[in-house]
């Protein structure tokens, strides 16, 4: 079982790597839009999450409101990953 703190640390680490920032500069409540992650960075981060947790994230870059996976903030990504892990 993967706990919430571990998922949050992984999400922050993965986002930080894409943003070329130290993980300490990505706050646990940060919004992705404010971090300035571009579209390729986003799909690379999702790939990294899938590889890390062996999940499949239902994300399509053409759907602005992302009905299946809320990628808007660190907490929403953590919650989404938790849900996907629980479903496997």
């Amino acid at each position, binding site marked *: 079982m993967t706990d919430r703190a571990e998922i949050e640390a992984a999400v922050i680490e993965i986002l930080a790597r894409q943003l070329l920032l130290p993980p300490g500069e990505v706050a646990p409540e940060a919004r992705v839009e404010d971090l300035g992650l*571009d*579209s*390729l960075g986003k*799909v690379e981060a*999702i*790939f990294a999450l899938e590889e890390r947790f062996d999940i*499949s994230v239902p*994300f*399509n*870059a*053409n*759907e*602005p409101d992302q009905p299946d996976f809320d990628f808007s903030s660190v907490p929403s990504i953590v919650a989404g990953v938790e849900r996907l892990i629980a479903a496997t």
Partner: protein
Amino acid sequence: MRRVVITGIGTVNALALDVPGTFAAFRDGRTAIGPLGFRDAERLTIRVGAEIRDWDEGRFTPSEQALYDRVTQYALVAGAEALAMAGLVGPLGPRAGVILGTAAGGIRTWEDSYRAVFAEGKNRVPPLVVPRLMHNAAASHLSIRHGAGGPVLSVSSACASANHALGLALQQIRAGAADVMLAGGSEAMLCFGGVKAWEGLRVLSPDMCRPFSLGRKGMVIGDGAGVLVLEAEDHARARGAPVLAELAGFGMTADAGDIVAPDPEGAARAMRAALADAGLGPQEVGYVNAHGTGTLLNDRSETRALRAVFGEAPPPVSSTKAMHGHAIGATGALEAIACVMALREGLLPPTVGFQAPDPDCALDVVANVARPARVEAALSNAFAFGGLNAVLALRRA
């Protein structure tokens, strides 16, 4: 400067294996998008495409089958149709050439040989892997089969490959390097590895392709080939050839910006360059076959580019990709053929799957049903990953 005309067209694509069948599908507004049927498709997240079904390799001899990847087979069948329509019989000689676009070349051959050595533990692959998979295979086999001994090469610029090929072929004839050029593109990327690669970018639609429509979910890949016979007008007239349309202009630009995100400014410059090259004013254009991939970003960006070039009321626009799929390096050739239909038959092929106008795509979209319209000139847009833009201008003959 020599004018260049189109005297023959040929295609195989998911809608039909010839031009009459493809035109019928354009007139009826049919889509070829459906479930994928190739090996391991069940392991994909995205399981739809515009696949050529029931392809009969038996039209080629066993030794040809060993030598021709699908990308070559499609080009040869399309090329034969185009040459028959043009009334040309080989050997075409040193004043004839071939320029074909492809993005992935013989990707199925790569896949099969890698599967053999990596997945199946084999220690050898068939001896013809290299001549099957090379990007110039399709162009070379067209040259060999029809005895075209002039300028022959392949062009690879992702989704703009076929438009670049057609534009470069136009320039060969204008420059006096050839009298006849077979040009267009071929693509056979619908295989497990090909679609897996696209999945990673998260831009594929899980069901339909709905260009410029509210609720669009992305692109759908298609397979196919389109080959056009381009000919110096004096050469065509001298032999009494049928003239289908004039390939009047070509414009190419680079965004020199992002590797995937489109830039409306680069696209607009390419359209203006094609118009200037053709000696056309924007008001003379009666139809634009859009790049219109059905992704959120492309369609929004292309709308901005069209409005920059044509002002508040651009001419009617459609994306035929919703019917034949995005045939990547071949798509520009399929779409040039759609423009020939618009010019010759006075019927604009539709954008099928259109549900509702998107305020971000304020265009006169030919939605769902083909529209009668007398067209004097048409543009065909192609905007590739890599920021490469290639636009063709066609004029009614």
